[in-house]
């Protein structure tokens, strides 16, 4: 009997509730005190087409998902075909009896078929066929011996809006399936899930963690145009707009989304504009505008596989160099690529401060995998008290009242940062232009002022570089191999080195970059130089971080492990490839 260490897949057609069941079960597990780590695999369609939801659950903290699956909840026959091979010996498949899945082939592979008349039970309990997924949750709990009360509490929350009656029917449906499984299959399944008594953890995805970070970081304005997988940052802030005093505006396109964001930032709002690569492409011209007028604006690019529309609902890490060099001309920008939930939260808040401190655009670079993946995190790791709002050299009304000279918005200073006022104060009437300008914002064409103003702006890049954080080293200080990665790949790479090191001491460690641009050359170089063998692990075709590292430090990778099929890495994939490339 293995307790609290298993992986479950829920698979079915889009529209069958795979996503809501998966999310619901994650929440139930978390309420039961378990750690949860989930991966979503969705097609870009609304109904039909196979989607699946992978959930790893443990009593201990989880670094990443892993490949072996113990239990498959198959809402369609196709799910069985697709996922059966991932099941370990002794694993099981729960499905509706009416699917008439053949037991024999499964049994030959040592897999149990748990037939449950899900739809029938739903109907018998006073519900309808669409409640099959509620039944599936009940069956899941039944087989894994997971306490029903957590399932019930999730059902309660999910159907709250629909009224007591619906809640009740769903309770009954779930219970019927639970009972059915217990009655027909007993306690025979090798893996079970037991509640643990701890302070309940949050189950949150990367997008929500960023949004929450931004909120705590003082964000009060967001504009966007919907684009998967960036949209839920915007939707979450929109949902909280009235309560927290946010202005949220869906715009006609991404060009206007960022332009409106820049306008709001210019007059003093703290702004976030979430999107994905295609939307970011449309923002490129305005990005340079923000750079030129020194408007503090935060953009989130949740990457998906390109080029172009590519895979709308899948993941990739292929926009890194694009983001760093996007827009004509040169100007400072900051790029953060968080990988864990905590890093997402922090990036949301840090970006707010960095953008105002350096008066320049900050881009948070994530990907579909991280954006959508729900994971448990300790409440204490999402530490509001660690966040302070820093508006940088921001002149308040009181500061401005005291001014004796004409206010110069683009004062040329040693640091490159010009004390900033927002329009509206009688002592700080100023102009701003996307053309080259002098200290008071007038359009100019002289070479001398151009040189000084451009240098002033570019100095901010060097200043920001000092604040950029070193990459984090995970695992032993010295190891045979150093995996080098950024953003979401931290999870699988971290688990991979853990697995490698449990086989062989000091086999591998991991160098992970959150702060990517301005590249922290001095802080990163010792780590990179110190590595015996450097292997870049990136979700793209051309090893973009490896290219960047070479451009910035001259240091080469010894090998690369790349993936660009729209699916996240797995630790096993990394380990296998590592054997190939070394």
């Amino acid at each position: 009997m293995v307790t609290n260490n298993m992986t479950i897949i829920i698979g079915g057609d889009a529209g069958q509730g795979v996503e809501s069941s998966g999310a619901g079960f994650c929440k139930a597990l978390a309420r039961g005190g378990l750690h949860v780590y989930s991966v979503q695999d969705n097609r870009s369609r609304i109904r039909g087409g196979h989607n699946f939801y992978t959930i790893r659950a443990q009593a201990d903290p989880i670094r990443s998902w892993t490949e072996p699956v113990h239990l498959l909840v198959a809402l369609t026959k196709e799910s069985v075909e697709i996922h059966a091979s991932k099941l370990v010996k002794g694993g099981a498949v729960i499905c509706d009896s009416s699917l008439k899945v053949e037991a024999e082939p499964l049994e030959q592979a040592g897999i149990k078929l748990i037939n449950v008349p899900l739809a029938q039970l739903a109907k018998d309990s006073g519900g309808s066929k669409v409640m099959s997924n509620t039944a599936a949750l009940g069956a899941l709990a039944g087989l894994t011996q997971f306490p029903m009360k957590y399932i019930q509490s999730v059902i309660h929350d999910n159907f709250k809006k629909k009224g007591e009656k619906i809640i009740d029917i769903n309770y009954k449906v779930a219970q019927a399936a639970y009972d059915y499984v217990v009655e027909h299959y007993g306690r025979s399944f090798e893996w079970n899930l037991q509640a643990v008594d701890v302070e309940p953890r949050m189950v949150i995805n990367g997008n929500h963690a960023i949004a929450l970070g931004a909120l705590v970081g003082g964000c009060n304005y967001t504009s966007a145009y919907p684009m998967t997988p960036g949209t839920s940052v915007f939707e979450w802030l929109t949902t909280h707009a009235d309560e927290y005093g946010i202005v949220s505006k869906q715009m006609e396109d991404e060009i206007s989304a960022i332009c409106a964001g820049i306008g709001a930032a210019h007059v003093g709002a703290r702004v976030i504009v979430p999107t994905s690569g295609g939307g970011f492409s449309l923002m490129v011209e305005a990005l340079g505008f923000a750079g030129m007028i020194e408007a503090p604006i935060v953009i989130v690019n949740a990457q998906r596989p390109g080029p172009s529309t590519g895979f709308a609902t899948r993941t990739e890490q292929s926009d890194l160099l694009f983001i760093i060099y996007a827009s004509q001309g040169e100007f400072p920008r900051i790029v953060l690529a968080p990988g864990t939930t905590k890093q997402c939260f922090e990036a949301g808040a840090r970006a707010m401060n960095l953008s105002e401190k350096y008066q320049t655009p900050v881009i948070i670079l994530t990907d579909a995998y991280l954006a959508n993946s729900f994971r448990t995190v300790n409440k204490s790791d999402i530490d509001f008290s660690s966040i302070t709002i820093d508006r940088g050299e921001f002149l308040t009304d009181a500061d401005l009242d005291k001014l004796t000279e004409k206010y110069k918005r683009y004062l040329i200073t040693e640091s490159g940062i010009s004390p900033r006022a927002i329009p509206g104060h009688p002592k700080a009437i100023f102009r701003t232009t996307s053309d080259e300008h002098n200290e008071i914002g007038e359009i100019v064409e002289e070479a001398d002022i151009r040189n000084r103003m451009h240098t002033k702006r570019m100095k901010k890049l060097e200043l920001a570089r000092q604040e950029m954080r070193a990459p984090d080293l995970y695992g032993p200080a010295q190891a045979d191999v150093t995996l080098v990665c950024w953003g979401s790949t931290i999870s699988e790479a971290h688990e991979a080195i853990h697995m490698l090191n449990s086989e062989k001491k000091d086999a591998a460690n991991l160098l992970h970059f959150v702060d990517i641009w301005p590249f922290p050359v001095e802080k990163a170089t010792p780590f990179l130089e110190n590595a015996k063998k450097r292997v870049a692990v990136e979700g793209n075709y051309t090893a973009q971080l490896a290219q960047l590292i070479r451009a910035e430090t001259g240091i080469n990778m010894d090998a690369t492990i790349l993936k660009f099929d729209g699916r996240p890495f797995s630790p096993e994939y990394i380990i296998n490839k590592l054997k190939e490339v070394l």
Partner: protein
Amino acid sequence: MPTVQDYTSVHRPTWCPGCGNYGIWNSLKAALVNQNYELHDVLIVSGIGCGSKLPDYTEANGLMTLHGRPLAVATGCHLANHDLKVVITHGDGDGYSMGGNHFLHTIRRNLDIVDIYQDNKVYGLTKGQYSPTSDKGYKSKTSLGGSIEEAVFPLAVALAAGATFVSRSFAGDTDQLTWLIEQALQHKGYAMIDVFQPCVSFNKINTYQWYQERVYKLQDDPNYDTSNLDLAFQKAREWGDRIPTGIFYQVQRPTYAEQVPTLGKGALVKQGLRNSVPESIKNEFV
């Protein structure tokens, strides 16, 4: 209260002598003065083009954005601080070509802003290509045999898109223009003024004289009903020997900001940044 002189920057206009933009500039300053706007309460947002240089010469808050984007930028400025009076000035290429989509969508939001088009029916700053308001047959470097596109009727489009204040003037008639800008400043909601702006360097067709021979004022007819959309739509398409100016259409509808709950508490940037977010918000994820 400020004077026209106060609104005039020491930085002098670089427009060609005789350019219609001088008339627009003077009218705007006069209207702001007449309506008692303080310099620091005004934000003039423009795009890129000859006309869009107006804020550079004007002593008020100014924001010269990107070609075609002033309305989008202005939307953010207004929503983040609707205590500022946001006035947009931009060209026909900026507003109706590059910026056409923002034109459509800003209108239907009925933001409380004033949107002035410096409509010279040509691309001035890029030296004379035809623009979306150039008449069919207009010859230019990029329409050698004459443009083969129907000209946009911007007022008709504005009406179709649901604008609450639709008007037209002529830079050669600064009295009317000043009056119109004042009306627009007073209008609660999106107010559009398309201004015929002779470009003395590139547009040799639509000259001061050309307009002078054609324009007439809708408001000269005391019976003209500015609440009649169908009539306005007809007038918006009237073109040729007689071309109407004045207020074509005006109607009152709630402005966008009035309907945003957050803005019920006043201008966003004046609300101050929230002090803290309660820990309880974490429970949403539990």
